[in-house]
């Protein structure tokens, strides 16, 4: 059974699923929808804050007098302005339907990326949550840094608004929400109003620590066994350093979970799809192609398997690895660098609030190189509470990087250029905008990398307030989010804004070749891809489409489990050949163990009694033939006579065979059974043998 809890949205908000495997409930990823933060007003800073207060008609929660209400009512239809944003300590939105589940019933949580981990402390702090959490070492570490950063950035709000009350915040009350513009209301409530329950006050640093203690970290291709039944392995997905796809092997099915993946990434280890080959089920959860669809839809013709059905396996595999997308990404970075250089030349500053680690590190390298070549002497600042540790960390994890970076290791170079940049005083790393060192060091124009991309948290807010009026400065944003809403509090914006999209998953044309290579028996695809990826009837696997909050029953492929029998036990088998059918059967008895995703049958500690002597069949079937019985009995030296049709205790059609010689005995043969009654043990057992020989038994 599979349920998609959320399709997510973009790189920072991966999808979330619950999958039922062999009776275990597995949750894939637990992200936060941080784009929802844009409904909050950023912390006012310095000069602007004063101005705001003066002519503010948004003393938001002081009174709800009728004037104010009517005024606000009028605004509902109008375009949003900065005053519509909620001025309060922000709450955070977890996956839509997750709060409807009883988390104590979740057995396993698999985290594919640091982004998929941000909501995890909400789960782990719930009493009764006892699931085993797995993530790669790097994902856990990066996730921890991101969460710690989030907590520390959030502090600014708490300091500004004072400690939160324990009660429900005002802005969530129904009357309040009714007054908000519809666009905002939709972010809060969701389309069907079901998302209100997903809002949570942020976790604490202690929650994060507690959460990390519960995470079991893995390396790529390391095997872990959950409860003896599920063998779980993480394989590189290529999206970021340490991100992964999952392979789950159970006694009855093998499953591959594919999160957003990149075939040939420029920094992380590449997408290891070979390891996911030949699974029974592929749960395809890379929805990145949906996010980029709108803009370029015309460019794509609909894909069908026709063109690929003729492709051989090798050709499919090859088509996956073409490097065009790699080059495309490079060009984007070049363009970005040239835009940055233009701004700097006009003595404007460049603000890059991009939190994607890979993009950030590559941009650092590119920009510093392009500054070097254009002999611009401009400082680069990285401002974030975790930047120093993050940069140090990326340099000690060579085994998680792509081949090219690893080769740097062997030639003795640092893995990333930022090591040298820091050494040469070209790159400066500060924890906050108020750091005394920053104030001493500060030079404009400059290039600043800082969180957070939602433009509501962290150093970016301060710098935007500072530069938003400067037409020469440049703000680099990741596309895919509502930039209008994001920039609302900083209007009027004189600053140039460059929106850039980065590769964040498998592109549409590669889905079919990938599935062709993986050769699953069943593929689970998102409903939204139904129209985009069409399969002809000849495809060798069946396809199911899933959609949000609908449970999909996946048909079982095998009616039996695999079982391994120990050799010593197998040698004890006493085979019997069945009379009517081409069939050999044997009884078996042993101890069943479940280990490592398999069932094992061992002979157990005690040798069973039946092993020593010839075991006698305990179960019989068929209809005994009287004639044969009598002749067999007479061969044994037993004389018997038949008394037909006398029912004992009213049972019909029973017949009785009387034995007088050598001793007295009676055989009562009925429709469903036979009763043997003899004066002594020997005779009884002889008669039993005779019966046994005319019936099938085991």
């Amino acid at each position, binding site marked *: 059974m599979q349920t998609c809890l959320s399709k997510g949205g973009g790189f920072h908000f991966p999808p979330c699923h619950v999958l039922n495997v062999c009776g275990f409930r597995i949750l894939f990823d637990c992200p936060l929808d941080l784009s929802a933060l844009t409904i909050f007003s950023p912390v006012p800073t310095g000069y602007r804050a004063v101005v705001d207060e003066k002519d503010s008609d948004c003393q938001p929660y002081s009174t709800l007098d009728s004037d104010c209400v009517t005024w606000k009512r009028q605004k509902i239809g109008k375009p949003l302005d900065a005053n519509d944003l909620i001025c309060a300590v922000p709450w955070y939105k977890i996956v839509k339907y997750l709060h409807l589940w009883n988390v104590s019933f979740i057995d396993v949580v698999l985290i594919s990326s640091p982004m998929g981990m941000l909501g995890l402390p909400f789960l782990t702090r719930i009493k009764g949550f006892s699931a085993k959490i797995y993530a790669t070492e790097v994902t856990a570490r990066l996730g921890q840094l991101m969460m710690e950063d989030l907590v520390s950035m959030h502090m600014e709000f708490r300091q500004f608004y004072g400690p939160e009350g324990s009660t429900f915040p005002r802005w969530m009350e129904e009357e309040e929400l009714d007054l908000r513009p519809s666009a905002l209301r939709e972010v809060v409530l969701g389309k069907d109003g079901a998302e209100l329950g997903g809002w949570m006050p942020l976790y604490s640093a202690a929650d994060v620590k507690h959460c990390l203690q519960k995470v079991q970290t893995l390396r790529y291709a390391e095997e872990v066994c959950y409860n003896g039944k599920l063998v779980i392995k993480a394989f590189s997905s290529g999206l970021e350093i340490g991100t992964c796809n999952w392979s789950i092997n159970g006694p009855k099915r093998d499953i591959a979970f594919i999160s957003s993946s990149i075939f040939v990434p420029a920094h992380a280890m590449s997408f290891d799809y070979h390891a996911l080959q030949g699974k029974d089920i592929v749960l395809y959860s890379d929805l990145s192609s949906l996010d980029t669809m709108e803009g370029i839809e015309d460019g794509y013709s609909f894909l069908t398997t026709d063109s690929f059905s003729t492709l051989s396996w090798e050709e499919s595999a090859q088509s996956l690895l073409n490097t065009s997308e790699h080059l495309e990404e490079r060009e984007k970075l070049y363009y970005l660098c040239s835009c940055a250089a233009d701004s700097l030349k006009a003595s404007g500053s460049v603000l890059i609030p991009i939190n994607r680690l890979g993009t950030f590190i590559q941009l650092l390298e590119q920009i510093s190189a392009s500054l070097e070549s254009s002999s611009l002497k401009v400082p680069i600042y990285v401002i974030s509470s975790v930047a120093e540790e993050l940069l140090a960390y990326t340099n000690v994890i060579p085994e998680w990087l792509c081949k090219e970076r690893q080769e740097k290791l062997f030639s003795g170079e640092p893995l990333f250029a930022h090591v040298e940049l820091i050494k040469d005083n070209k790159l400066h790393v500060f924890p906050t905008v108020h750091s005394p060192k920053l104030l001493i060091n500060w030079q404009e124009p400059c290039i600043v990398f800082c969180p957070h991309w939602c433009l509501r948290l962290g150093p970016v807010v301060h710098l935007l307030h500072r530069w938003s009026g400067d037409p020469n400065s440049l703000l680099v944003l990741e596309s895919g989010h509502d930039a209008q809403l994001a920039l609302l509090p900083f209007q009027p914006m004189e600053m140039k804004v460059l929106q850039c999209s980065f590769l964040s998953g498998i592109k549409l044309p590669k889905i079919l070749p990938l599935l062709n290579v993986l050769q699953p028996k069943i593929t689970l695809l998102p409903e939204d891809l139904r129209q985009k990826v069409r399969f002809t009837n000849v495809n060798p696997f069946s396809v199911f489409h899933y959609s949000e909050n609908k449970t999909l029953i996946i048909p079982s492929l095998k009616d039996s489990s695999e079982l391994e*029998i120990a050799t010593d036990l197998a040698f004890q088998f006493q085979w019997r050949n069945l009379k009517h059918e*081409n069939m050999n059967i044997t009884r078996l008895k042993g101890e069943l163990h479940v280990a490592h995703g398999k069932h094992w049958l061992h002979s157990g500690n005690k040798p069973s009694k039946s092993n020593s002597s010839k075991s006698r069949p305990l179960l019989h079937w068929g209809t005994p033939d009287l004639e044969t019985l009598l002749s067999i009995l007479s061969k044994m030296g037993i004389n018997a006579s038949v008394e037909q049709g006398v029912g004992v205790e009213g049972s019909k059609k029973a017949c*009785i065979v009387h034995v007088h010689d050598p001793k007295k*005995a009676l055989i009562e043969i009925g429709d469903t*059974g036979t009763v043997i009654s003899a004066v002594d043990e020997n005779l009884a057992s002889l008669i039993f043998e005779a019966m046994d020989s005319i*019936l099938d038994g085991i």
Partner: protein
Amino acid sequence: MAIECLVLGAGQQVGKSCVVVSMNGKRIMFDCGMDMAYHDHRRHPDFSRISEYGDFDKALTCIVITHFHLDHIGALPYFTEVCGYRGPIYMTALAPSMLEDYRKVMVERRGEEEQFTSEHIVECMKKVIAVDVKQTVQVDKDLMIRAYYAGHVLGAAMFYTKVGDSAIVYTGDYNMTPDRHLGAAQIDRLQLDLLITESTYATTIRDSKYGREAEFLKAVHKCVLGGGKVLIPTFALGRAQELCILLEDYWERMNLKIPIYFSSGLTMQANMYYKMLISWTSQKVKETYSTRNAFDFKHVLNFDRSMISAPGPCVLFATPGWISGGFSLEVFKQWAPSEMNLITLPGYCAAGTIGHKLMSGKPSKIDLDKDTQLDVRCQIHQLSFSPHTDAKGIMDLVKFLSPKHVILVHGEKPKMATLKGRIYSELGIRCDDPANNETVCIPSTHHVEVGASNTFIRSSLNPNFNFSKMSSEDESDSRLKDGKFMPWLQVKDERAAEGILVEEKGKRAKIVHLDEFLLMLGEKKHDIRFAYCFPINTDNLEDTKSTDVSSSSNALSVSGRSSWLPMLYIKLSDELSGGNIQYFGEQIQVESFSVSLCLKDRCPYRIVDSPPNKCEAVFFCCAWSIADEKLAWKIISILENRNYGTL
């Protein structure tokens, strides 16, 4: 089928490690080392034993290298480039970088003809597939390998190898106690047919390393205080970093300002590897990487050739480790004549090197070559902390893994024999210590793979509780078993998987539950039971009544037919030990055997001739199924009072 284990090197010796294991049709070479004690063909393993005609690609499935020490990897370039092996080679990421370091040493050794070139090494390393700790690598459909952390040196691994149902572990060199920069070896509890372990310290129990570390630091400190120079010849990776961490720590503590130098770029480069391969180091080093990387040596500076004869104390790390040439020899020539200076020597130096000469006694003169002689007046300190496990560590590992068989390699013959005896006598595990070029065959595990129905699996996993009461006789001594109080009623979960294995032509064998089986066949069950109706002489029963139950039989003395059954129950309980006897009022049940009062005048199962005096006989009717045949007749004989003697 058997696992064949051909020892090509390190059999009853410490030197070129090389073991070829054949299991279930796969053939894996573990390590491919070089013996530094020899200069001729004997320094390489005898590869001709793998394939007579040199067709190694067919003969071997893959090569697995545990770590980069020359006695484990040294012959690899020769094997791939000269012998022409082209198959896959697996090792951890760090191993390749070291070969070049060693090659220089080999070339610089006098009279040494070059067996392989730099290009050979580069080519060889291109064939290498890097393996990460705990990564499970599927070499082909049947062969799986997995590396475990060995702690011997940076990047050292033990390898778990599985083909079909057979599995072995080859340890390479390992260390069971964590040290300053490396952790202790770590492995899962695995089901193994064979463990091939090193046994360098087969009989030694090592004391703490800290004492010897302190000795080293004291010697160095004394030397530099006296204005002397300390030369530490090392190879680029491993020992150099370990010693440097020691010195850094000490310098910090003692607030020393005397410079520590690293001679060549290579050593600095090696430090770089260390910094980046934090995941291979000990937990302590790992935790501090972002605040202060333990390999970021603050006191360490680069050394310049011109500084050799500069005045003042200093500490210098120089390669190569055995003073066999290169920079360490150059410095040695300058510093050895002064009594103020100190030279430290590694635990092992190849024969023929200056290091080796210095180790054997304390010579005052050393022949550098035919014409030059060097006065050696400096102090010499031999380092003796070793990254090999000791005997206790080996025993711990063997006990932990509990393999079916152990093979010892990489040790000295008499000590190995002692350890072999211990493993057999203390752990009961068969153990061998083959010499070079010997083959050991051990049986391998196999399983038969079948399908199993859900009902069978479910029923087998259901608990099957068995209640048994302690009988009163053994109460006194056995209720206090193992210091634990045994309760009256004992509950055991005796779950057993019982089913029927069905093999149909053209189909996979499958296990089904008994209940499913007939459904599968479409047949009806035909139940065969036994019945027996017999009289019991009431006189006999009266006896029992008067003797056994007299005290508590007030109720029973109200004579009547209803009292016979309880009496039988008491009798059975007394005389049938161990059976689970239940009394249901109308009948007594033991397993499938049941007995009840027969009130019929003519019971069809009353085969036995009735006793003459009918009025005094009471008839009992029994029924049972074949499973309890023996039990049933035993009970009947008890009840009929015929066979007291045999019970």
